[in-house]
């Protein structure tokens, strides 16, 4: 809760910094604020005094705190990375404010305990992201990305609202716990429109996390947006959306799981098949990573599906989002640094080995982690998912997941190979700033650390 308050305050501070002329100290201020929010999160973890606030509207139990810590840590790394991106534009203050407001929405989603906070959290997260996607105003592709994101996002929000209204009509409550209690009492006598409502909410959330067949916006939006904003989308936004998905379906609708588990199985199978086969054919790095993010979202959905007692599943979901976010952030960071003076084409990475050693190593580790190769965090992330799927009923899904991650490994390793062995058109070395190098090294070290000691996350006592 304290983290949320601090982030909201920082957003407001960013807005008035233009008026009171302390724009130059805004960056250190934001970093200090994020660090303070992280520290307070840890403090709240150790002193669980208030779990829920404001008539049970929002509650930060340990799983919410873990998710918000992941989000804040990734955001901190992102801000360090994005320092010179902010400097280049003319709307520095607006960018800061929008990113911070989106962050506030993300934190709200991790702690939502009520349909109203869920909806407002999603909107507070999405609306700044629509604008940020379109923030390269002279670039036609960026405009297209923002517009597409807005239209598709509003469409999903409409579904979400309709679903919430139907569920409210059936259970007469917005509160997650009250809805759960109502379902437990009246199971079997619930009206048909309740189930329609749950499915509508499922569709809306699937839109937001971009899984097939609701993924069509993702590649275009990821490609058109500025690289760093795409990095934010695939890390912070995704983690927050999954935190909300988990709270909603594992906690609130867990008593009607037979309804949505089958649907999720179809969604997961479709996403795995569509994303990995399409990703092989991509020539734009960002587009390829967009498809890869769809397949990772499918893996994360598998955790929600195979809910075996809440604690283990939540732990592996946190582990997966952390591993994915770190790998994805470092991959986007490398693409950002490489594409600064060049294109975002996959061939731009050819022979990167001869241009900059650090970037090559970072991207290699990140891609190995995304592919799920041991010693990196991605291996255990995928291992936990596959080991948790009930093998009697969903064996076919496990096999499909293994096949598709083999295909994924092919296109990740193809890039790694071309970085080391292909010839680049230029030998001009890429200079990396100290702050950027710091972020890259932190990401790599964390990826290897969590890959070697996964117990750091999976043995956290969430309850």
């Amino acid at each position: 809760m304290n983290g949320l308050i601090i982030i909201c305050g920082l957003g407001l501070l960013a807005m008035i910094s233009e008026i009171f002329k302390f724009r130059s100290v805004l960056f250190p201020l934001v970093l200090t604020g994020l660090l303070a929010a992280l520290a307070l999160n840890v403090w709240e973890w150790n002193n669980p005094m208030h779990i829920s606030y404001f008539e049970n509207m929002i509650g930060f139990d340990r799983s919410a705190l873990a998710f918000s810590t992941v989000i804040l840590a990734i955001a901190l790394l992102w801000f360090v990375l994005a320092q010179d991106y902010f400097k280049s534009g003319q709307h520095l203050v607006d960018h800061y404010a929008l990113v911070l407001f989106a962050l506030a929405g993300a934190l709200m989603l991790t702690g939502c305990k009520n349909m109203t906070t869920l909806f407002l959290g999603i909107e507070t997260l999405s609306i700044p992201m629509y604008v940020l996607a379109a923030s390269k105003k002279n670039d036609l592709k960026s405009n297209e990305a923002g517009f597409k994101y807005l239209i598709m996002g509003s469409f999903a929000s409409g579904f979400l609202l309709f679903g919430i209204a139907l569920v409210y009509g059936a259970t007469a409550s917005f509160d997650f716990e009250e809805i759960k209690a109502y379902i437990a009492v009246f199971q079997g006598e619930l009206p048909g429109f309740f189930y329609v409502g749950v499915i509508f909410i499922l569709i809306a959330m699937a839109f937001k996390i971009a899984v097939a067949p609701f993924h069509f916006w993702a590649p275009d939006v990821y490609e058109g947006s500025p690289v760093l904003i795409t990095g934010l989308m695939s890390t912070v936004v995704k983690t927050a959306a999954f935190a909300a998905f988990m709270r909603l379906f594992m906690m609130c609708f867990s008593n009607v799981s037979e309804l949505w588990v089958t649907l999720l199985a179809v969604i997961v199978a479709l996403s795995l098949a569509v994303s990995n086969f399409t990703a092989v054919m991509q020539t734009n790095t960002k587009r390829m990573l967009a498809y890869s993010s769809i397949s990772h979202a499918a893996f994360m959905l598998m955790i929600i599906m195979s809910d075996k007692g809440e604690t283990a599943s939540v732990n592996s979901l946190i582990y997966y989002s952390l591993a994915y976010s770190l790998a994805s952030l470092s991959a986007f960071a490398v693409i950002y640094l490489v594409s600064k003076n060049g294109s975002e084409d996959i061939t731009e990475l050819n022979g990167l080995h001869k241009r900059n050693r650090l970037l090559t190593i970072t991207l290699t580790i990140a891609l190995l982690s995304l592919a799920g190769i041991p010693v990196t965090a991605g291996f255990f992330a995928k291992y936990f998912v596959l080991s948790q799927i009930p093998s009697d009923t969903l064996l076919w899904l496990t096999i499909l997941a293994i096949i598709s991650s083999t295909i994924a490994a092919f296109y990740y390793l193809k890039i790694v190979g071309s970085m080391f062995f292909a010839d680049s058109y230029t030998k001009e070395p890429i200079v990396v700033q100290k702050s950027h190098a710091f972020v890259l090294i932190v990401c790599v070290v964390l990826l290897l650390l969590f890959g070697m000691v996964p117990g750091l996350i999976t043995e956290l006592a969430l309850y």
Partner: protein
Amino acid sequence: MLGYTITQWLFGILSFLAVMFALLVVFSKNPVHSVLYLVLTFFCIAGHYLLMNAQFLAIVHIAVYAGAIMVLFLFVIMLLNLNEQHEPRRTSVSRIIGVIVAGLFLMVLVGVLKGTEQLQLTNTANAEAGLIKNLGQVLFNEFLFPFEIVSILLLAALVGAIMLGKKEVKENVNENRI
């Protein structure tokens, strides 16, 4: 009067007017007239809200829909100079397809309406719930947190709109001036 209460008469008249104006929105040739008829439709729906004792909703409906959104519509129509009908002539194929699709949709609607069962309301709502006083109390007690968060949401939307709308100052133009 004919066995109906005043409320039922008002409901009938308002519904008739709402449907009439809605039809006029579709059938009038001039887009500006369409928008004005739509405003009248919204007023009729606001009347329905009043009948259901939802004062706040009625006022918001008029202020937001009839006020803000419709004025925006009018602005756009006038800026684009659409006051004459520019619609291209439709071919007969598209007309036939339209009729078939609309007919299918009608069939679905009729089927759904025939299949509905009468549900008994389990929770009868408080009839006073829509009054401004009660709504305000709920908003500032139970829903205080969402109410505050909406301000952040609106602020974010405002900042975003200004950022996208602001004119980009071209750097090289400045250099030329200097």
